[in-house]
C-alpha cells in the first residue's frame, strides 16, 4: 500500500532528478556544449503545453462531452502549420530586440511603453493565475486519492487552516523549486538552458506515464480498442459520446475552442518563453513543426479509451472523471502504476508551474516593478552599487507571490470548477494578446494607444463575461448579476451580452472580447499617425526579414560616454558580465574596448543588452538617464525609414541591372555569333560570285587575245570563237543582273509592283516565252490548265520569272529530241499550285537538298553543261516565299523531277473568269 511518506519521498526524489538534469544542462551550457542545441529537445520542451489539465482533465472532458477534448489539441496542430511564417518571424524579432517576455514584446513594439508592458503583465498574471491554481488543485487531488484518508487530514478543505493544507506546502515547494531553477543568476539573454532540458525530460515522463495507463486500460482491462469501443457502443449514454455534438459541443463551440487553443499555444506566457525566449536556433522550428503535433497526437490517443473505460468501470458510482487516470490503476490493484501516473502528473504540473512562473516573474519584475521603481528615480540615482541582486530579489518575491495568489484562487474558486473550465478561462485571457501581437508583427499602422485600447477593452469584456461569472458560480460573489445583468439591465447579462444566446459561455466571451479588442485596436490606431518612436519600432518588427532595414541605433541621436554606459550595465548585469559584453561588442567592431566610440550603435547595444535583463521599456529609461538624447521628430524617423527603403530599392535596382547586363551580354554574344555566320556566308557568296564572273571572262579573254594576235585564223574558227565570246558575254550580263536582283530581294529593297494577276495568264506567258527553247531542243511541252482560277494580288513579272526559270531548267536537263515537260496548274486547299514535271535524269536526295542553294548547278557532265548562273532557283524561291508560298522539288533519280510552287489565295481573292 502506498503511504504518504512513500509518495512524498518519491516526489522529492523525482524533483531531485529533475534538478540534476537541469544542473547537467547548465553545466554543459557553461562549457559551451549545449544539450538544448537540439531540435528534438526544443520540440519536447514545447510540450510544456500539456499540463495536468491535459493529463487528468482531457479524460474528464471526454467523459462529459466525448470528442469535445479534441479542439484543445487540434488548435495547436493547426497553429503549428503556420509557424514557419508566424513563429519564425516572432523568434527573429525576439532575438534581434532581446525580447524577454510577451509583455516586453508588446511594450517594445509600441514604442517601449511602460504602460503597455504593465497592462500585459496584469492581464497575464490575472489570466494565468487560475491556470496555475489548477495545477495545484490537480496535485493535491491526486495526492489525496493516492493516500488513504486517515493518512492525511483532507476532509473539508475549505475549513482547513492553511498551515495544515498539503496544497499550501505544494505551492511553497514549487516556489522554492522555481527559484532554484529560474533565478540563480540574472542573464543578459534571459535563457535557462538547464531548465529547458528538464522540461523536455518532463515531457517524456508524462507522455510515457499517460500512455502506460492507456495501454493498461485498453489492453489490460479490455481486449484492445475494438473490444473497448464495441462494449461502450452497447451503452446508450456512452454511444452518444462518440459522436460529434455530444455534451453540447456544437460546431460553434468547437470552432471557438480550436481558435482559442491556436492562440493559446502562441501567447501563453510559458509557451512564449519556451518557443521564443529559450529558442537557440531558428531552424529548430522545422522539426518542432511536425514533432510537436505528433507528441500531441500520441498523448491524446488514449484519452477516449480511458474515459470510456472509466465510465464503464465506475458505472453507477459518483467518481470524478478527472481522476480516472489515477483511480483506474488503483482500483484494479496496480499501485506501482498509480505511482507512475502520479509522477507523470507531477511532471506535468511542475513543468507548467516552473516555466509559467518564471515567465510571469520576469514580466512582473521588468514591466511592473521596475517602472515603478524608476518612476521614483530610485534605481537610476543610486550610486555605483550592483543592483543585479535587487533584481533577482524582485523576481524571487514575484515567484512566491504568484504561487501564493494561485493558492488563494484555488482556495476561493477552485472547488467549483472542473479542471478544463479553469484552463479555458486562462486561454481566453491570453487570447487577448493576439491582436496587438499579430497586428504589431504585420501592420505598421498599429499604435500604442490602439494597443492599450484593444487590450483593455478585450480584458474588460473577458473579466465581465468569464472571470466574474466564475467567481459568482463559486459563491465568492453575489450571483444575481448573472441572471439579471449589471444594474438590472438584461442587455448586460454577462453570459448573454446584448441578448446573444445559444453559445456556451466561453465562445460567447471569446466572441465579444475579440470583437471589442480587435475593433478598439484598429479603430484607435487609425485615429492618428504613429509617432516617431512607434514608427521606428514598427519598422524593426514588421521588416525584420528585409535586407537593408535601418541599422542598429538608426533611430537614436544624441551624445553619450562609454564611461557612463559601462558602469550602468555593470550595475544590472554584474561588473564582469558587463565588461565581457563590451569586449565582445568592441571585437565585433574590430577595435579595443578603450577605443570604443559612444555612438548610436553602442548606445543601442547597451540598451538591448540591458533590455535582455530588465525589459526594453525600463532599459530605455535607464539608458536615457546617462545619455543626452536629442529626440527625433517624426519627419526625421520617416526620413530614416525612407532612406532604408531607398537602400532596399537601390539594391533591388542593382540586382535588376546586373541581371539585365547578363542578359545583354548573352544577346550580344549570340548576335556576334550570327554576325560571324553571316560574314562567313557573305565570304562564301563573294567567292562564288568571283568564280562565276571569272569563268566567262576567261573564255572571252583567251579567244579575244588569240583572235587579236593571230590574224591568220581561218574564218570558220573565227566565227566559232566570236559566237562563244558573244554567248559568254550574255552569260556574264545575266549573272550580273541576277546577282543584283538577288541582293535587292534579300536586302528588302526590291520593288514589288503588286496588282491583281491571274496565275493562268502568268503560266501561259511563261510557256510562250520559252516555246523557242523547246522547239530548238525538240522537247514537247504539255499543258494542263483549268478554265479559271482565283485572282492573286502579286507582281506579275516576278511570277513570270519564276515560271520561266522552272521551264528553262526543265528543258535544260531533258534529253534532246525525246524530252517531255508537263506544265500544270491546279487549285488546292492551300492555294494555287503550279507543277513543272520533266523526264530528265532526276535528282538524288543530296542534290534535292542543295539545289536551292546559290551557285549550285545541276548536271555533272560536260555534255550539255548548263549555262545557268546558279541563282535562278534561289531567286524563284525568294519570290514565292515573299508572297507566303512555297517552292519545292520531288524527284526519284532516273525518273525525272517535278518542281512545284504554291501561291496562297488571300480571302480577298476573287474568282475571275478567264477567256483562255
Amino acid at each position, binding site marked *: 500500500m502506498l503511504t504518504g511518506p512513500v509518495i512524498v519521498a518519491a516526489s522529492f526524489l523525482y524533483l531531485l532528478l529533475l534538478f540534476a538534469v537541469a544542473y547537467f544542462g547548465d553545466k554543459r551550457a557553461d562549457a559551451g556544449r549545449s544539450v538544448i542545441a537540439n531540435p528534438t529537445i526544443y520540440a519536447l520542451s514545447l510540450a510544456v503545453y500539456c499540463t495536468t489539465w491535459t493529463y487528468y482533465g482531457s479524460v474528464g472532458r471526454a467523459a462529459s462531452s466525448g470528442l469535445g477534448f479534441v479542439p484543445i489539441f487540434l488548435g495547436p496542430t493547426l497553429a503549428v502549420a503556420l509557424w514557419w511564417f508566424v513563429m519564425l518571424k516572432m523568434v527573429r524579432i525576439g532575438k534581434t530586440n532581446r525580447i524577454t517576455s510577451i509583455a516586453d514584446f508588446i511594450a517594445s513594439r509600441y514604442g517601449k511603453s511602460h504602460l503597455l508592458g504593465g497592462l500585459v503583465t496584469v492581464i497575464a498574471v490575472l489570466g494565468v493565475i487560475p491556470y496555475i491554481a489548477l495545477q495545484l488543485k490537480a496535485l493535491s487531488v491526486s495526492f489525496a486519492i493516492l493516500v488513504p484518508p486517515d493518512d492525511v487530514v483532507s476532509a473539508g478543505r475549505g475549513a482547513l487552516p492553511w498551515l495544515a493544507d498539503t496544497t499550501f506546502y505544494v505551492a511553497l515547494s514549487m516556489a522554492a523549486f522555481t527559484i532554484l531553477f529560474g533565478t540563480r543568476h540574472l542573464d543578459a539573454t534571459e535563457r535557462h538552458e538547464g531548465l529547458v532540458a528538464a522540461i523536455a525530460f518532463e515531457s517524456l515522463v508524462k507522455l510515457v506515464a499517460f500512455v502506460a495507463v492507456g495501454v493498461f486500460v485498453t489492453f489490460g482491462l479490455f481486449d484492445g480498442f475494438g473490444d473497448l469501443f464495441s462494449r461502450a457502443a452497447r451503452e446508450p449514454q456512452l454511444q452518444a459520446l462518440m459522436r460529434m455534438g455530444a455534451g453540447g459541443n456544437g460546431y460553434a463551440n468547437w470552432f471557438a475552442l480550436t481558435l482559442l487553443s491556436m492562440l493559446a499555444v502562441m501567447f501563453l506566457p510559458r509557451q512564449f518563453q519556451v518557443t521564443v525566449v529559450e529558442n537557440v536556433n531558428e531552424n529548430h522550428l522545422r522539426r518542432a513543426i511536425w514533432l510537436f503535433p505528433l507528441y500531441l497526437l500520441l498523448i491524446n490517443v488514449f484519452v477516449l479509451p480511458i474515459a470510456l473505460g472509466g465510465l464503464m468501470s465506475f458505472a453507477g458510482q459518483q467518481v470524478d472523471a478527472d481522476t480516472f487516470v489515477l483511480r483506474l490503476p488503483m482500483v484494479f490493484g496496480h499501485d506501482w502504476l498509480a505511482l507512475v501516473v502520479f509522477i507523470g502528473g507531477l511532471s506535468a504540473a511542475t513543468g507548467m508551474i516552473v516555466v509559467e512562473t518564471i515567465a510571469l516573474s520576469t514580466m512582473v519584475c521588468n514591466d511592473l516593478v521596475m517602472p515603478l521603481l524608476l518612476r521614483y528615480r530610485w534605481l537610476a540615482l543610486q550610486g555605483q552599487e550592483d543592483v543585479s541582486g535587487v533584481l533577482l530579489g524582485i523576481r524571487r518575491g514575484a515567484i512566491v507571490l504568484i504561487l501564493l495568489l494561485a493558492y488563494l484562487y484555488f482556495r476561493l474558486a477552485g472547488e467549483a470548477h472542473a479542471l478544463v473550465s479553469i484552463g479555458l478561462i486562462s486561454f481566453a485571457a491570453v487570447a487577448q494578446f493576439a491582436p496587438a501581437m499579430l497586428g504589431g508583427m504585420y501592420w505598421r499602422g498599429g499604435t500604442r494607444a490602439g494597443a492599450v485600447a484593444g487590450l483593455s477593452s478585450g480584458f474588460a469584456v473577458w473579466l465581465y463575461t468569464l472571470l466574474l461569472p466564475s467567481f459568482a458560480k463559486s459563491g465568492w460573489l453575489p450571483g444575481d448579476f448573472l441572471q439579471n445583468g449589471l444594474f438590472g439591465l438584461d442587455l448586460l447579462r454577462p453570459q448573454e451580452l446584448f441578448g446573444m444566446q445559444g453559445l456556451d459561455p466561453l465562445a460567447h466571451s471569446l466572441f465579444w472580447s475579440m470583437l471589442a479588442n480587435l475593433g478598439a485596436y484598429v479603430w484607435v490606431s487609425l485615429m492618428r499617425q504613429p509617432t516617431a518612436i512607434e514608427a521606428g519600432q514598427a519598422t524593426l518588427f514588421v521588416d525584420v526579414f528585409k535586407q537593408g532595414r535601418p541599422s542598429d541605433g538608426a533611430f537614436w541621436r544624441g551624445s553619450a560616454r562609454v564611461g557612463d554606459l559601462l558602469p550602468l550595465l555593470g550595475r544590472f548585469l554584474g561588473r564582469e558580465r558587463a565588461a565581457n559584453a563590451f569586449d565582445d561588442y568592441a571585437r565585433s567592431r574590430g577595435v579595443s574596448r578603450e577605443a570604443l566610440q559612444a555612438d548610436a550603435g553602442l548606445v543601442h547595444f547597451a540598451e538591448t543588452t540591458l533590455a535582455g535583463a530588465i525589459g526594453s521599456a525600463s532599459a530605455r529609461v535607464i539608458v536615457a538617464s546617462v545619455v543626452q538624447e536629442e529626440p527625433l521628430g517624426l519627419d526625421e524617423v520617416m526620413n530614416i525609414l525612407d532612406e532604408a527603403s531607398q537602400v532596399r530599392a537601390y539594391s533591388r535596382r542593382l540586382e535588376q541591372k546586373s541581371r539585365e547586363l547578363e542578359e545583354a551580354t548573352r544577346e550580344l554574344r549570340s548576335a556576334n555569333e550570327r554576325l560571324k555566320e553571316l560574314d562567313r556566308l557573305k565570304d562564301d557568296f563573294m567567292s562564288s560570285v568571283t568564280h562565276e564572273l*571569272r569563268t566567262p571572262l576567261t573564255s572571252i579573254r583567251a579567244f579575244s587575245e588569240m583572235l587579236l594576235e593571230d590574224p591568220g585564223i581561218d574564218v570558220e574558227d573565227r566565227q566559232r570563237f566570236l559566237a562563244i565570246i558573244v554567248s559568254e558575254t550574255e552569260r556574264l550580263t545575266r549573272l550580273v543582273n541576277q546577282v543584283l536582283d538577288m541582293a535587292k530581294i534579300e536586302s528588302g529593297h526590291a520593288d514589288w509592283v503588286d496588282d491583281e494577276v491571274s496565275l493562268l495568264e502568268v503560266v501561259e506567258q511563261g510557256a510562250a516565252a520559252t516555246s523557242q527553247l523547246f522547239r530548238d531542243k525538240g522537247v514537247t511541252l504539255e499543258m494542263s490548265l483549268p478554265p479559271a482560277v482565283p485572282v492573286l494580288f502579286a507582281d506579275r513579272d516576278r511570277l513570270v520569272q519564276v515560271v520561266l526559270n522552272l521551264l528553262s531548267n526543265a528543258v535544260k536537263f531533258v534529253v534532246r529530241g525525246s524530252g517531255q515537260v508537263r506544265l500544270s496548274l491546279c487549285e488546292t486547299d492551300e492555294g494555287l499550285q503550279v507543277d513543272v514535271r520533266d523526264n530528265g535524269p532526276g535528282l538524288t536526295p543530296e542534290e534535292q537538298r542543295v539545289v536551292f542553294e546559290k551557285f549550285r548547278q545541276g548536271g555533272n557532265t560536260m555534255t550539255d553543261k548548263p549555262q545557268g548562273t546558279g541563282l535562278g532557283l534561289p531567286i524563284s524561291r525568294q519570290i514565292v516565299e515573299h508572297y507566303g508560298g512555297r517552292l519545292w522539288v520531288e524527284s526519284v533519280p532516273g525518273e525525272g523531277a517535278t518542281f512545284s510552287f504554291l501561291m496562297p489565295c488571300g480571302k480577298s481573292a476573287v474568282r475571275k473568269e478567264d477567256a483562255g
Partner: protein
Amino acid sequence: MAKKILIADDEQNIVISLEFLMKREGFTVCVATDGQEAIDKVRSEAPDLVLLDIMMPRKNGYEVCQEIRTDPGLQGTRILMLTAKGREMEITKGLAMGADAYMTKPFSTRELVTKVKSLLDLPA
C-alpha cells in the same frame, strides 16, 4: 617529239580555247571534263603537263593533284593549276598539294604559254 598536255576543265568554252592555244604552240592535247576522268587520262595518256582546273565535278583539282603526287609512276608529270578562285589561301593550298605552278583565271594567253614552256624546259 611533241610534248603532251592534258586539259582538265569542266567549262566547255575554256577547254576549246585552251585546246586551240596549245595545239597552235605545237603540243599534243588530250581533254578531261571532270576530276576522275583527269586521273584516268593522266594514267592512260601519260601527259607531260596537266592544265588543272580546281572546281570540277566528281573530284576537284586538289584531289587530282594529290593523287598524282602520291603515285610513284607519275612523278614526271608537271601540274599547272588554273582557277577562278584567286584567294591567297587557294594558291597556297594548291602549291602544298604538289602543283608546280598556279595561274588565276582569266589569264593572259601569252603568259600561260610562257609558263607551260618553262615548266617543260622548252625555249620560249
